[in-house]
């Protein structure tokens, strides 16, 4: 759907028994825009991205990814085609190498032809995974596995890129590289939704922010304004 927004969320809620994980979240992302979800542990950031990505069923509200509902088959198939998810812990096959993971994702998303081999090689090179391309996940460090998960998300086109705590386990040069890749994705028109505790990382990529607290939106607006108000609340040390 060319006219549809990459992400449109209305009154999205998720409950775990009597615990409110997410309470009536409204959010829209335009093409090329990046929104950061920030908040303390247990504030609902991961619940939000997992519910948006279709990994958790919503208790109320709607999600539209590129105009499609990720929770209702067969519409969800089109939503999945438009969505790339980088979970907080990469979910990899024990018996597939790094390169085979990328080949499988390209194949499953229908982009295996058209120079996929070159794209995979370039992506491996860019992420510093070339020397580990034929290694199994068990032979990789935490950071390398995280990069493999990131490569799986970037190997095919997506209108919406969702990243849950993407910098955890990455060294500073890799964090800088990730920021660079996200900026490139934005320039190519991909909307980016990420959760993070790393304010400096988000400084470089986020346009807007939502601060969550106990599942509710505590603050929203331009990234710099939300960050400033978070500093005043004492949630972020000044200058961090």
């Amino acid at each position, binding site marked *: 759907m060319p006219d549809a927004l990459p992400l449109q969320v209305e009154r999205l809620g998720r409950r775990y028994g*009597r615990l409110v994980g997410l309470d009536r979240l409204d959010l829209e992302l335009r093409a090329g825009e990046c929104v950061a979800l920030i908040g303390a542990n247990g504030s609902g950031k991961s619940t939000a991205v997992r519910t948006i990505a*279709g*990994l958790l069923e919503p208790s109320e509200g709607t999600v539209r990814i590129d105009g499609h509902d990720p929770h209702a088959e067969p519409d969800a198939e089109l939503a999945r085609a438009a969505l790339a998810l980088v*979970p907080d812990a990469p979910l990899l096959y024990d018996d*597939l190498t790094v390169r085979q*993971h990328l*080949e499988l994702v390209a*194949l*499953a*998303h229908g982009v295996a032809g058209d120079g996929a081999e070159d794209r995979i090689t370039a992506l491996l090179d860019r992420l510093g995974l070339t020397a580990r391309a034929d290694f199994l996940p068990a032979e990789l460090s935490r950071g390398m596995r995280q990069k493999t998960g990131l490569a799986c998300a970037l190997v095919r086109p997506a209108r919406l890129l969702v990243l849950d705590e993407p910098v955890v386990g990455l060294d500073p040069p890799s964090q800088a590289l990730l920021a660079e890749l996200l900026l490139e994705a934005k320039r190519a028109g991909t909307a980016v939704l990420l959760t993070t505790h790393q304010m400096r990382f988000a400084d470089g990529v986020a346009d807007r922010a939502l601060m969550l607290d106990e599942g509710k939106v505590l603050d929203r607006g331009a990234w710099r304004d939300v960050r400033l108000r978070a500093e005043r609340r004492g949630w972020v040390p000044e200058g961090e």
Partner: protein
Amino acid sequence: MGAIRTWWRGAHPSPGLLKRLEPVYYVLITLGIGGPFVYGTASAALADVATPRAIAVWGPSVALVALLGVVRWGAVQGPVVFSVPDVAQLLGAPLRRAELALGRLLRGIALGAAGAAVLAGIVLIGRLSDGRSIAVARAVGFVAAIALLGILGVAGASLVQGSRRWDRVTRLAVWPVLAAGVGLVVLAGSGTAGEHVALWCGPWGWAIQPATRIAGAWPVALALLAALAAAAMALALRRRGVSSTERHMVRADARGGAVAALYSMNARYARRSLTSVNAGPAAIPRARLRAPRSERWAIAWRDAVAALAVPQRLGEALALAAGGTLVTLLNARHPVAVGLGALAVYAGAARLLEPLRAETDKPGRARVLLIAPMGRVLGEHALVPAVVVLAGVLASVAGCAIAGALPAHGGAVALLAVLATPSIVLCAALSSRRGGRLPESVLSVTYVDTTGSSMLIVLLWIVAFPVLAIALGAIPVTVAAHHGTSALPTLAIVLACAPFALLAGLRWERFAP
């Protein structure tokens, strides 16, 4: 999907023909060497069990409960299970879920049918023992019918797996179905008319008919069962792609945990992993229980809070204790029935021992949070289950006494049944204390065993405490029922002393977790 399968086969080159035929070779060799022995053993063991009369009386009930068990398997796993990476990479891709699920569902149905057919074959071995015969058509019909019942069960499991509504309905049906199972046994045992009703009242009865002596109409029952299984399979196939990603993910996580736990021979963790699929948020008791002032009651208070948080479990424990005692009192002269009664009391106690198991899961927690040594903590965890179970036992005894249903030497039998209760509870506590995993000592014995009795050693270790509980619950009662009060003082003294020995074992610090 075809392209992915082709790629997958390329990434995982299949073994050569000889390698693929290896399992067939092993099966044939095993059957060739062990087949006659297994046949002889099964034939001898089942000769008295799988009689036409026993099959007619017990068959529908057993088939009904087994069908329920297979269907409820869908609540924790089900036939369409993906791995965690599958959920991320395949279910996260724009692929048709129905296509992804098809192969797994068909494989599950085929395995369900094959497994059921094997079980039917084993029952037939017993049915043919002692010179009994059965027409070939009936034998084939019986195997086919049980295989169809397997298909029905797997199809049901698939529906439960994919739908919260089916899940809820079958969960609510568990106790009514178990009660219906008991009712079917009573009905089928009441005479020819009751037997006919039990054999015609549903697929569990239809499947049994070919192996009974009921005349004539079993092909009709088989046709009915085939139609029902076909309809269930068609429904399962139609709805195969509707399960949400979240339901697939929790099952994938649970399967990973259960497989890892089984590799380390930890049955407790395997069970916890599987039941986590359907676990809701931790229950909070509606009635607040005031904390005691003395630390001596801390563990009892904690256990009471846990029991009140899940009233269903409390009710089950009371029902099992009362029901088991009722069975014991009404059948005091029949050792098997009395043993089953003791086992029910044991199961009732086991329902309330979850806090004790939680201590063995994470022993460090008790050491950080509590002052008392671990052995004493474990011993105190038996108090609340003992009180609850004893209440159920006493209620049953009182009910029987008021109704005048106590057996001969009823006073002695009732007294011994009550006296045996603390020992049975402590046996359940000792079993729970082991934490569901084989200890290193047992494992090392099985490693060095050259006599081929490793399985027996493991089995003995597993059943040790349930068997001890049955012995302590059944032997005194049966002796008193047969010989009156002559042995009562001795038996009463033994049952009064046994809890002290068992409690010492439970509190034994040296082998505490």
